[in-house]
């Protein structure tokens, strides 16, 4: 009797999972189709769009939002949100550059930057997951505090990289075999790693469970608070990595770096089919969402449209995509 019960529940979860997987697949197919159409259109419209140089450029630019988007995606799937990532991505450049300016190695600087990200993630996670304060408020607060902290420390000026390490320049601007930008490789590696984690590891499945229904997850014996706490850490660390690459591209610690980055990333994540209600979405979708927005803004630039048009179209596409997605969901 207990055996048959367990078998049947196993089947149930399996078929439910199959259903979910096929649903996700459909959503991602649509996104993939959009991306292909977009690329095809711009290739016809502009001769210089579909070149190795330009495509790899876009991938390099997209990788920062992709890296941060993976973290935010995981966190939103867990039913929480982090809007402090833009400030954090700007802030990590300070320990990085300051350590290098004092003669430290790049590795030491990166360690310092990630330590700051870890600290911020732990504070956000403790306040939101353990104390139970709404995560939008917590991270809105830390967004202010971190940005204010940056301004206080830098006096609203950029801190230039005085040592000029070649390796520091290379991590953000270098290319493997002269073609694939390193940030794109970092993004790809993280994407594969976290996709594996979310789909095939118990921890990933627990994140979906926690985001879908925290009460049920708790009754199933999951440590909901700890899982959410870890997701805040993941989000902060990935924002930190994005910030390190950004500062390498800028060649300094810029006090306004990452301003508005959080909105861009959250928009891409939601465009990728992750529901703000939690428990729904995939990181592959997030990657597609980021790529669509990046190719869109690059392609519009190629057509010599004013950069302001990029903002306008991006906004309109987010509304259309999310609205379409909602309509589809209500039909089913």
């Amino acid at each position, binding site marked *: 009797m207990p055996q048959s019960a367990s078998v049947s529940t196993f089947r149930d979860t399996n078929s439910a999972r199959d259903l979910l997987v096929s649903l996700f697949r459909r959503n991602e197919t649509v996104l993939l189709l959009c991306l292909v159409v977009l690329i095809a259109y711009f290739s016809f419209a502009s001769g210089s769009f579909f070149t190795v140089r330009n495509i790899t450029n876009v991938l390099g630019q997209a990788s920062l939002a992709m890296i941060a988007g993976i973290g935010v995606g995981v966190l939103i799937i867990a039913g929480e949100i982090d809007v402090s990532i833009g400030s954090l991505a700007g802030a990590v450049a300070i320990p990085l550059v300051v350590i290098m300016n004092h003669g430290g190695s790049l590795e030491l600087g990166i360690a310092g930057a990630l330590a700051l990200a870890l600290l911020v993630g732990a504070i956000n996670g403790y*306040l939101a997951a353990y*104390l*139970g*304060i*709404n995560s*939008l*408020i*917590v991270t*809105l*607060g*830390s*967004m*202010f*505090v971190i*940005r*204010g*902290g940056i*301004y*206080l420390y830098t006096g*609203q000026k950029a801190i230039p990289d005085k040592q000029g390490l070649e390796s520091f320049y290379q991590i953000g601007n270098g290319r493997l075999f002269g073609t694939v930008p390193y940030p794109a490789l970092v993004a790809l590696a993280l994407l594969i790693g976290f996709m594996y984690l979310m789909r095939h590891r118990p921890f990933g499945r627990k994140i979906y469970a926690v985001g879908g229904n925290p009460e049920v997850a708790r009754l199933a014996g999951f440590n909901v608070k700890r899982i959410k706490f870890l997701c805040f850490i993941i989000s902060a660390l990935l924002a930190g990595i994005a910030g390190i690459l950004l500062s390498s591209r800028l060649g300094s610690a810029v006090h306004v770096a990452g301003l508005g980055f959080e*909105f861009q990333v*959250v*928009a891409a994540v*939601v465009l990728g089919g992750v529901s*703000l209600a939690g428990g729904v979405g995939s990181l592959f979708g997030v990657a597609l969402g980021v790529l669509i927005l990046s190719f869109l803004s690059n392609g519009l630039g190629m057509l010599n449209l*004013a950069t*302001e*048009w*990029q*903002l*306008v179209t*991006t*906004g*309109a596409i*987010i*509304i259309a995509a*999310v*609205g379409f997605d*909602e*309509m589809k969901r*209500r039909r089913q």
Partner: protein
Amino acid sequence: MSEITQPVTSTPPVRRLAENSPIVLFGLLVILCIAISIGSPQFYSVENIIAILRQCSLVLIIGAGMTMLLIAAEVDLSVGASLAFAGVVAMDVTNQTSNVWLGVGAGILFGGFVGLVNGLIVTRLKVNSLIATIATMMILQGSVFLYSRQAIQNHNQLPAFTALSTGYLGPVPVPVVIAAIVFAGTFVVLRHTVFGRYIYAVGANRQAARLSGLKPERLTLLVFVITGLLTGLSGLILASLMNAGQPTAGRGFELTVIAAVILGGTSLSGGRGTLLGTLLGVVTLQVINNGIIILGWDQELQMVVPGVVIVLAAYLDLVRRRAGAR
């Protein structure tokens, strides 16, 4: 049941007081004022108090709408961008027509139009308001530059336009009068009209509200339009204050407004909040900002301190609610 019996039985008066969030915030405000005035006596000068009130009025006008939105369990992040655009439109129309009142009308109507669009996206397309208004924020930030790349100056130098922000009605600055009228109006609407009670009902439990015959979509749409109109009004005052329509004005203003409303005890999950709390939240944040300046501290602290205060306020609110639930 327990709510009624608790005060009668054995709750100590101090705790009863602590459970009243506006009173706690008011106490905090009083302590802040005393502390700042000890550090710098000029805090109580008439000029300084008027400066604080003038700064409060811009935030309070939008904050009144934002409070209603948050009570209805929605949010609007586009108010900062809309504020700037409305100011540009108001200034432009004033220049074109040499008529301040047409400019005033255009600015307010522009804000209302943005609110209408936001409301339609949220209620018709069912897009989550956080995402929808991030998207409209992007659209507004982009299109305001397409409309005008530079600040639009007050070409005709109409004194009536600047009077909107720098004028006085008796001893009181005009923006403060406007903010007071807006506050009184929205206060009455929220507390004493059926519409106001419906907003609470929709925010607390949308499904239950629908089942009892309310039309949550229509109510939500209306609250978005009200917030939009108030944003237009505030944008107009800001343009008048700068004597120009500045496309880059209002960046991050949405966060200041939301911070003040949350500090005032309005819940992000809807159904709870008061305008009195918002008023106190707005004044507290502006007194902190002002204090940082007149005490000669680093101006950058103006971002750090509110950040800490918001989180602290949210935590205190949580503790209070848990104590109440027990």
